[in-house]
């Protein structure tokens, strides 16, 4: 990847990242396609569904998704997808840690298997337990500003609000709420879910998000590696624009040569 346009590194829980693109590992046509896309994305953070991984410690060759992710190259963040309540999520997180995975956890608790919308109450409950046990917790949440603050107070490392339900490709459906979350946040805000095309990611970064997480849009692309690269470029461009300060849109025309320029003469 060429020198990024954006200049400020991302810091989560004291760890510095130069890529602001997180990538999920579900839905790919093959482990190799996933591996190629990760490389092309320039990502440093990869999330993996624990329900697809071998937690038994027996080297299960039919649950080999972890074999395709180089832990030297990427920070592997296990996720608790499939958990319907705090108890299940905590159990999964502990198992992942016991299996030797990093003690980072993307906390996902969605009791509704269709839209996979996160349960705010159970998420807060699990976050409090896991933070207390020393996990670096990255909770997936609805775009709820109050919940975001409550999680921050509980000690989570980020909040990961959705832009739209997982896999919908709808873009920044929750834009107004995301703006409030970003404005109020004292921890990194990672916009997760619903971003379907690179311009969605760029817009999220322009909004001031600290990072975005993409999975479906990359995984189901005809050329996942190329799409991963497209997202990487878009994230970088959006972040650079945010760092420079976006021009404020106005309703009336503004002359290139200011009418009041004589005052500075």
């Amino acid at each position: 990847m060429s020198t990024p346009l954006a200049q400020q590194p991302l810091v989560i829980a004291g760890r510095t990242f130069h890529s602001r693109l997180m990538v999920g590992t579900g839905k790919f046509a093959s482990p190799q396609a996933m591996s190629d896309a990760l490389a092309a994305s320039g990502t440093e953070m990869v999330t993996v569904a624990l329900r697809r991984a071998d937690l038994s410690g027996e080297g299960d060759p039919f649950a080999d998704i972890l074999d395709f992710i180089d832990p030297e190259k990427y920070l592997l963040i296990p996720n608790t997808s499939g958990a319907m309540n705090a108890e299940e999520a905590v159990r999964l997180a502990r198992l992942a840690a016991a299996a030797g995975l990093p003690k980072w956890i993307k906390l996902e608790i969605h009791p509704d298997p269709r839209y996979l919308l996160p349960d705010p109450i159970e998420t807060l409950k699990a976050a409090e337990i896991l933070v207390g046990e020393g996990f670096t917790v990255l909770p997936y949440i609805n775009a709820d500003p109050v919940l975001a603050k409550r999680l921050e107070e509980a000690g989570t490392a980020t909040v990961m609000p959705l832009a739209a339900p997982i896999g919908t490709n709808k873009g920044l459906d929750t834009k107004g709420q995301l703006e409030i979350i970003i404005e109020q946040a004292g921890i990194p805000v990672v916009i997760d879910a619903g971003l379907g095309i690179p311009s969605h990611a760029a817009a999220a970064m322009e909004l001031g998000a600290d990072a975005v997480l993409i999975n479906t849009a990359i995984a189901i692309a005809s050329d996942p590696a190329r799409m991963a690269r497209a997202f990487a470029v878009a994230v970088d461009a959006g972040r650079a624009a945010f760092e420079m300060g976006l021009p404020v849109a106005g309703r009336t025309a503004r002359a290139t040569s200011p009418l009041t320029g004589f005052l500075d003469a």
Partner: protein
Amino acid sequence: MSFVDEFNRLPGIASPRLQAFQRLLEPGHDLEALAARAAQTTRRHFGKTMRLFAPLYLSNECVNNCKYCGFSRDNPIFRTTLSVDQVEAEARYLATEGFRSILLVAGEHPKFVSNGYLEDCVRRLSAFVPSVALEVGPMETEEYRPVVAAGAEGLVVYQETYDRATYDTLHTAGPKKNFDWRLECPERAYQAGFRRIGIGALLGLADWRAEALALAAHCDYLLRHCWRASVTVSLPRLRPAAGEFEPTHPVSDRDFTRLMLALRLTFPQVGLVLSTREPARLRDGLMPLGITLMSAGARTEPGGYTGAGREALHRTERGKIVPLIGTEGEYATEQFAISDDRSAGEIAEKLRSLGLDPVWKDWDRALAHQEQAA
């Protein structure tokens, strides 16, 4: 309130969603266009993946008489019930084939397949199989709870036919005669804590469009009322079996495909299951269009994978055990003849050639394994 109330008012109260579903079933809709939309919808929601599972038959004993079923009590077939050790042996064989998702299937017989037996089987398998589901005779909510606690994740119950009159004609004896009891079974399973609920209609028994509408209404109801569960839909077509029942309403490959596509477009996030009842050519064609779960390398008799249970083999005549004569009955009788006999490995390879990733493990027993947590 249960689905029975809504069902009894069908088709009169069909919602706009169900009316749209019904329109998709009409021949006027361009099948090719439906296929393209369904393929796209499936990729969006499920990605380029296919979950694989295998059935494991525990017992072919049955107290019911169902005219279409090879296991019917009156059929003079070779029967057996596997011991828990034998069930484990079958499961370990399937695990070597790659399966991490197993469906335990049994006829309905309180003497052979009682609650304690099912619990023991589930508990034994849960130690090394992440996802264990059941397809057994309907039970009470309270009877399901210990099976869920033992580690069972899913329950499958097909209504067979949603046509009351046909149902009554086909089920001549046994507890299965109770149409409403069966129809409410998915709700009882949900109350008991099952996370995945499978429903379906056995195609070939009644007019397929009417069956489809009732099945879609059932799915729609479960999505609204059992919102925490994953719902899967299966459309088994009748296959040759003991008793030699012939389908009274055969469903063509074209209509079967149309029905699958209509279900996918109406219920984008619902899992659609395709079994080895269907021929290889059709399965291959449907793989990229809307199917999300497939069985492979299936055997439909107890002990079919390892030969287990043969020492307890016996023959029945009108439900009564009769002595075996000579060398007859070396194997238990299958429920029906499968059509696609390719191995799990061959199916996985076919999926890969179509740009799909065969997923063996998509569940971990740490999720919802209550006894383990205790």
